[in-house]
């Protein structure tokens, strides 16, 4: 019962906060609400016994990506932006599309069947600690994708520098 109550609170807060994030007029407010949203999502990860993912969510998303967003929002000045209307004229088309997507996927959820359980039971993870179990899997079975992720991050950093660099006048 208490678990359901906690889940209900976090689900409600996450949905309300997402709606708040996309409807604020001032992007700075959106970024700050999104920070709160990420804390709630990290709590949901803690519910699911994924404490390493909760830590990564807080460090990478709340600590890294949102600070980057905040920097860019403050670099791009928004004096005129906040005077005009937030949504495009045809916002009802977007709403219809999103609502149709929700209904279709929600109806298809009923026929979802969970696959037979794997070997990582809660007891095994408790015995081995979550971070260690995840790290063992990441550095053995998923070593090649891990290297590709490193390459993607390198390319992203170089690309961001090239794009944002001021061109020298020659």
């Amino acid at each position, binding site marked *: 019962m208490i678990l359901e109550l906690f889940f209900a609170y976090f*689900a409600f807060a996450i*949905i309300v906060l*997402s709606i708040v*994030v*996309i409807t604020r007029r001032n*992007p700075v407010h*959106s970024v700050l609400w*999104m920070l709160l949203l990420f804390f709630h999502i990290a709590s*949901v*990860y803690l519910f*699911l*016994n*994924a404490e*390493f993912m909760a830590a*990564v969510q807080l460090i990478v*998303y709340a600590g*890294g*990506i949102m600070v*980057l*967003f905040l920097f*860019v*929002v403050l*670099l*791009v000045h*928004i004096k005129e*932006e906040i005077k005009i*209307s*937030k*949504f*495009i004229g045809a*916002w009802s088309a*977007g*709403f219809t*599309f*999103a609502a149709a*997507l*929700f209904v279709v*996927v*929600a109806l298809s*959820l009923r026929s*979802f069947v969970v*696959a037979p*359980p*794997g*070997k*990582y039971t809660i007891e095994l*993870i408790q015995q081995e600690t979550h971070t260690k*179990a*995840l790290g063992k899997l990441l550095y053995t079975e*998923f070593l090649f994708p891990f290297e590709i*992720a490193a390459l*993607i*991050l390198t*390319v*992203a950093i170089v*690309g*961001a*520098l090239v*794009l*944002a660099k001021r061109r020298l006048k020659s």
Partner: protein
Amino acid sequence: MVPLSWYMLLSLAVFTIGVFGFLTRRNIILMFMSIELMLNAVNINLIAISHYMQDLRGQILALFIIAVAAAEAAIGLAIVIALFRNKATAHVDEVQELKG
């Protein structure tokens, strides 16, 4: 024990809100934030299913999604800065050079 379908419905709701925000907001920064919202919805779904299937592969996939989201945010915000330098706007309606 909270049933798995609740988590999937929560993830679906957040994803739909992200889709709505991406389609209808005018500010390009808010559009990027909607993309982050959608990626987070997918992460909730993956971690919930990974917990209920007792398999850690879903969480590994979520870890890669976080890495790709960081790369995407860096590139996207660099594009926003380049756009703002050329057009002095963060407004997608005014960027229409490619329109024939």
